[in-house]
């Protein structure tokens, strides 16, 4: 078999293993898929009525909820990767003649799959709650592409964190900022309604252009500036995560 074919086959085997893990771990399923739905219900049904955002709150908040669904799916990836590292499973794989990247790619793919399921669930629930986007088919394709890009970038970063952390607990803890960042962005309320300091932070942090791009796409009116900034952030995070993950993977025995 060629190298690429071997790497692909190895990654598929790893993916199958990681999928089994996800399906057998109720906490992972809850955190990654149910919890974002609970958040969506809470913000739209409980809190949203009090927010003044200039449009129907479900339409405003759904793009942000997509991003939250992605970030909530990451914690379990960090923990799983760290578990493999500290329990010697990664060393077992490393001493075998298998593709170097397969172990990590498998984690990234399973994270992406999990996040896409979560995002699909969010969109479905949002529709049931009266979500009324103006997106064309092409815009939806853009949404999908953007969510995948974001997930892959965040997943590489998370895998790196999981590899580098000393314990599973600290690995899980290290992903908390990724969960907190969407709250400090334009996900829940527009940044210009926030207090000084927080507002500037919200305007310049990576999640805001990403969410604004998704919001634009879903409204059928995407903004090129936000899209470029969002793609830039995602690519940047992906490269940092990838390089960090690979070098940690090679170093730690």
């Amino acid at each position, binding site marked *: 078999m060629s190298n690429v074919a071997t790497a692909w086959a190895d990654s598929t085997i790893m993916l199958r293993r990681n999928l*089994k893990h996800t399906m057998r*771990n109720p906490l992972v399923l809850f955190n990654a898929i149910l919890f974002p739905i609970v958040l969506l219900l809470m913000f739209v049904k409980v809190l949203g009525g009090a927010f003044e955002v200039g449009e129907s709150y479900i339409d405003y908040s759904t793009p942000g909820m997509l991003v939250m669904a992605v970030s909530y799916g990451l914690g379990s990836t960090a923990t799983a990767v760290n578990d493999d590292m500290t329990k*010697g499973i990664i060393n*077992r794989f*490393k*001493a075998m*003649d298998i593709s170097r990247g397969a172990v990590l790619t498998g984690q990234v793919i399973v994270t992406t799959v999990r996040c896409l399921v979560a995002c699909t669930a969010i969109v479905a629930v949002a529709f049931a709650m009266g979500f009324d986007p103006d997106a064309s088919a092409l815009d939806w394709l853009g949404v999908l592409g953007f969510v995948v890009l974001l997930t892959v970038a965040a997943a590489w970063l998370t895998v790196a964190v999981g590899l580098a952390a000393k314990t599973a607990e600290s690995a899980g803890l290290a992903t908390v900022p990724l969960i907190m960042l969407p709250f400090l962005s334009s996900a829940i309320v527009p940044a210009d309604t926030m207090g000084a300091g927080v507002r500037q932070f919200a305007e310049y942090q990576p999640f805001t252009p990403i969410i604004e791009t998704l919001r634009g796409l879903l409204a059928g009116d995407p903004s090129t500036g936000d899209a470029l900034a969002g793609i830039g952030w995602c690519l940047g995070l992906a490269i940092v995560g990838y390089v960090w993950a690979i070098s940690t993977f090679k170093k730690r*025995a």
Partner: protein
Amino acid sequence: MKSSAIAVSGLRKAYGDRTVLDGIDFEVAEGSVFSMLGPNGAGKTTTVNVLATLLKADSGTVHVAGHDVVTATRQVRAAIGVTGQFAAVDELLSGRENLQLMADLKRVRSGERVVERLLERFDLVESADKRISTYSGGMTRKLDLAMTLVGDPRIIFLDEPTTGLDPRSRRTMWGIVRELVADGTTIFLTTQYLDEADHLSDRVVVLDHGRLVAEGTPDELKRQVPGTHVRLRFADLDELDAAARVLGGGTRDDQELLLRVPSDGQSKSLRALLDRLDEYRLNAQEFSVHTPDLDDVFLALTGHAGEEAIAS
């Protein structure tokens, strides 16, 4: 003359300014059991990690299965199996799934049959479809070793394979090691149990503070220490002094209040020795006839006792 399965020369490894391996050389003959004996922190795991391609040495050359671990890493990996110090099994999978995962990754033909056979061999059939989290320590260890055996590696590294096992599981593990060698597999094992090295190995090296302080067959090593002797432990230093004077020719260990007197171990000479103690109204709190084992070798070679000697 058998060729070498493993050849190591001038191997050095340091973490910062802490030298872990300080230039070690050894060769392992194909189809033999080679034990690396040493206390905790001697550098055993570091050696295994270098040999198993998990860690890069600072200097020296290492050939495993005829391939250089640095330039032909993949060929080395294809030839070896590694069981680390801590069971590396996937706890969310069942025993069967763990083995199947290995078979898939190694592209083993008719993997299911291989898995089934390993489950039988390691007496794991009953719990094959249960999650590992329900397994006992001994079962996990067995599965761990079974996973290493998938694909019949020619050279197997076992890093302290019996640490933490009860005596019965330990015997089982020894039995498996013997079977493997009978099939022509080469085994490199590390242990801090002297009797384990004694029972299993064709050759033993003793590692202490990153240096090899001895190498040979278990018998050769045992020959390096004094022969059969009687060990006497006394209640206090005065009594030890008196006994040393009376018996003569012994070596003493004041800290342990121990006197070692050479003897042929026969009942007649033992009786004479005991009579003599009695004559001087000396009473040994402990009395034993000692045939040298690797414990003594270890003590003699390193100037400090092995882990087990301290514990007992």
